[in-house]
């Protein structure tokens, strides 16, 4: 198997807030191979967006990457180690900021955000923004860049591309703005596109158009994707492999078919059970009990144990890593000690009472508890 295009290893991102340190991403590892579409799925607050912005070193203050190693095409995008004094620092292997900006961002790795209105400047024309981007990143003359911009707009399905070149972002519909961003992301034919919930704000019919477009473009350009989403439907449709995140950790990692048909982590299972289906009538939904705890004060042991139907005493103390839990035919990792791969006392441990009365416990953010 060829070396992965992108490798994220033990990434940790923390936010230093007044209320304390929020461990938004707490030691996640995953990789992306060439031509692959890898999903990163989870509920809001799971740390998906922070994780992908760390790849491009776009984490904003008070957030900081405090550990981990990200490698792209053999180059180290970031490597952070903890020194003897306990302070974390970037190692010399990390490529400098300027070089990252000039060589990697936009050219090698592009990013598409959820809200296209925020990514486009409202006071410049759509075509102008696209042209400038192409001109700067591909060293084309203004004339050629313009031609290329119109070609890209046509390529992503903007009707009357030449005429709409001079329109402003507000004259475009949401779906068309997202198409423009895809055009911009593709303009330099990057090896990897990071898509952060790009279809979440769109209507289903528009979402279908965009997913279709991505399929088509991926076939043509063989681009790899990291696709962040909370929608299991989108995951099932487009992803090759999936990482499921919960409270800053990856709890399950599997090829898409295995994730749905050979689910290994109770959280993934609960998530799949709680989704209403468009293709069949489900009488009673099985919601996950309770709400996701705050990342500032995550539960000890396995982070999901407070809501997990399979939780036992042992889960309160052991925080499992994400390791291979099946026979090794496919790569299927899960972070749950109920599997044999973890040599723990789960078997003999008494079951925990979870659920706290239907799961409606309210905890004040100030730290007051209700028990």
């Amino acid at each position: 198997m060829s070396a992965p295009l992108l490798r994220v290893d033990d990434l940790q991102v923390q936010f230093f807030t007044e209320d304390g340190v929020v461990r938004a991403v707490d030691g996640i590892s995953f990789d992306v191979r060439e031509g692959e579409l890898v999903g990163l799925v989870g509920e809001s607050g799971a740390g998906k967006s922070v994780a992908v912005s760390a790849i491009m070193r776009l984490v904003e203050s008070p957030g900081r990457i405090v550990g981990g190693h990200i490698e792209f095409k053999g180059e180290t995008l970031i490597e952070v180690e903890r020194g003897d004094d306990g302070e974390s620092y970037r190692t010399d292997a990390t490529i400098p900021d300027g070089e990252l900006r000039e060589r990697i961002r936009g050219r090698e790795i592009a990013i598409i955000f959820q809200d296209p209105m925020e990514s486009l400047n409202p006071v410049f024309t759509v075509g102008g923004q696209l042209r400038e981007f192409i001109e700067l990143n591909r060293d084309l003359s203004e004339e050629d860049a313009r031609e290329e911009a119109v070609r890209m707009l046509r390529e992503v399905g903007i009707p009357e591309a030449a005429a709409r070149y001079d329109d402003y972002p507000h004259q475009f519909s949401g779906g068309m703005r997202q198409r423009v961003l895809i055009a911009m992301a593709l303009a330099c034919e990057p090896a990897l596109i990071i898509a952060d919930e790009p279809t979440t704000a769109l209507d289903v019919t528009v979402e279908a158009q965009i997913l279709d477009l991505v399929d088509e473009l991926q076939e043509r350009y063989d681009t790899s994707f990291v696709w962040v989403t909370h929608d299991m439907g989108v995951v099932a449709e487009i992803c090759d492999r999936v990482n499921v995140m919960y409270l800053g950790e990856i709890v399950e990692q599997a090829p898409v078919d295995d994730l749905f048909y050979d689910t290994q982590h109770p959280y993934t299972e609960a998530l799949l059970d709680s989704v209403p289906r468009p293709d069949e009538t489900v009488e009673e939904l099985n919601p996950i009990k309770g709400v996701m705890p705050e990342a500032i004060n995550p539960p000890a042991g396995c982070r999901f144990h407070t809501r997990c139907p399979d939780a036992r005493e042992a889960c309160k103390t052991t925080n499992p890593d994400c390791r291979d839990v099946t026979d090794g035919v496919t790569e299927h990792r899960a972070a749950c000690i109920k599997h044999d791969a973890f040599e723990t006392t789960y078997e003999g441990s008494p079951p925990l009472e979870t659920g706290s009365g239907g799961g409606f416990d309210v905890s004040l953010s100030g730290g007051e508890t209700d028990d």
Partner: protein
Amino acid sequence: MTERASSASDGADAVGFGEPLVEIQNVSKHFPNEEGMFSWLSFNRDADGLPIETGREWVRAVEDVSFTIRKGETLGLVGESGCGKSTLARTILRLLEPTEGSIYFKGTDLADLSGERLRNTRKDIQMIFQDPQSSLDPRMKVGKIVEEPMQAHGMLDSEGRAARAQELLEKVGLDPQHYNRYPHAFSGGQRQRINLARALSVNPDFIVCDEPVSALDVSIQAQVLNTMRDLQKEFGLTYLFIAHDLSVIRHISDRVAVMYLGQLVELADKQELFENPTHPYTQALLDSIPVPDPRADGHRGVLEGDVPSPIDPPSGCRFRTRCPELITPAEYDLTDAEWERVRSFMRHVKRRDFTETDPDALSQRYFDGQIPSGDAGDKVSAAIDDIAADDWDAAAERLQNAFAEQSICAREEPDYEVDPEYGADRHTVACHLCRE
């Protein structure tokens, strides 16, 4: 639960389960496109005489919508953003005055009510909004929030209200002890529960829920949906449930209405609608939802183009400009395959998404070198010549006038009823394909 507070519409409570509770008849709602003192004036440089024109543009948000909601049922209303779902909901609540048409609640025309009687009827109709955050006053304690509607309608004394508020908090799955907390201490799902408790406080018959769970995470969504269902059973509530998510609609509704660009396109029993969707728009909508199953049939229905503007909606069937099944104009003698090619060509010319102008190449590319014979073929050839002369607008217009505008879809507004395959409920479809 406490006994029903006496209402001004005594006797009207006699509406039995399954009987019509709310009837919406030919309701339209139009908005002026621009607000403001001089918005009815516009400047036109090319006009004869004074270069000023008068007259407003109207956004036809809801147009001629009729349906009935029965007591005890959940009617799901689904459609994409901008299709007029929320405007319709607000019109039903009489938060907006309908431009035309009437809304009957328990047999009384809401437009006839005013003052005290309207206030009393409002008690029976409540609403839950999408954003649980902004619909709660951050400076009011949860208990007071739930009590406020009761106070406004003069229900119970203050102790009675407090007791009822606590009871309701428990009913919606919150801890009654949280009576004295502020909304910020609650999560999104819990805030939506507070909204539910508030809506229930005045003992309504009918609750309009405008995207109540779309701001919530899936796992929380399921919790709230289950609670809403339990409450409906317990209190005999009637819901109008608005959502853009068809999975949620499928889970909660008894009957489903589909809206497109201000009009209802299909209304049927839930199972009938999902298993036997008849309107091409409903079909497209169902085909576009990503199914959470990687082994599901990979077919993804993709609609072309965007929703047209409601200021100047298409004539006849409003969906015809994007419809994959536009009907062949009667005057042309085209085979299905030929008609398919003509429409594809027409679409590409309109979108101008190719740069080819050579007539032979075009005919090869879009018609496999075989332009249909007869009248239709002449018009296609003329359009190809227009493109060769680089006059794209003329070509697009020629094709539109010759084909799209001649279809029955452009000439008549559809309104049909089909025999249901599932259940016995009426199944209405606004599509000319059902005309036989």
